[in-house]
């Protein structure tokens, strides 16, 4: 179980998320929790630093953005760790957020779906409790 305090006055909940690539390289990045998003989203540069080649990914997703429709590659990151809880082989979309979003990526549902998530806006508590049926195989 992972637990953290957050500021309920802030417009989004921000978390530090750790990504480990198949080469053992680690990037810890600031992400916005977005359970309404289908996937995690990280910048191309982070994916490349982790040892992936997004341009060669066969799996793609169509994104509908304010500026139009775009296609972005999906990679599978070896391990994603949130608040001390890890998930393996996580599908992640490679796409940059605007710089003024002030986060590096989005923590979309591809990770939270492995957990029961408790968000208490009154106390500013966020808790990730692992779902037993989705534990590491």
């Amino acid at each position, binding site marked *: 179980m992972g637990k953290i305090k957050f500021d309920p006055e*802030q*417009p989004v909940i921000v978390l530090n998320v750790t990504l480990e690539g198949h080469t053992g390289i*680690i990037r*810890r990045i600031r992400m916005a929790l977005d359970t309404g*998003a289908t996937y995690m989203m990280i910048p191309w*540069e982070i994916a490349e630093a982790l040892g992936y080649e997004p341009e060669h990914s066969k799996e793609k997703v169509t994104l509908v953005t304010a500026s139009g429709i775009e296609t972005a590659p999906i990679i599978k990151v070896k391990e994603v*760790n949130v608040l*001390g809880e890890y998930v393996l082989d996580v599908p992640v979309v490679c796409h940059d957020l605007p*710089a003024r979003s002030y*986060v590096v990526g989005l923590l979309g549902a591809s990770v939270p779906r492995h957990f029961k998530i408790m968000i208490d806006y009154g106390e500013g508590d966020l808790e990730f409790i692992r779902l037993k049926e989705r534990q590491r195989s």
Partner: protein
Amino acid sequence: MLSKQAIKDIMKKYKNEWLLIKVTVVDEQGQPTEGEIISHSKNRDEIYDAQKKFKGDLYITYSGEMPKKGYAVAFYG
């Protein structure tokens, strides 16, 4: 030579900047608590480019607050 500092001190020192930090200590939840500043910039893309030159365990963050009053946030994906 880079010097180890508490992450909270690095965040205070380089306020409202994008930071690239070599992680030296994490807590039990994997949150970085101590590190060595490698690069800092107002320009996010400079930090994204800089991190590509390093292997190992790096922390990439922004030391300012989230969008100011008058902004709303809508993500997609």
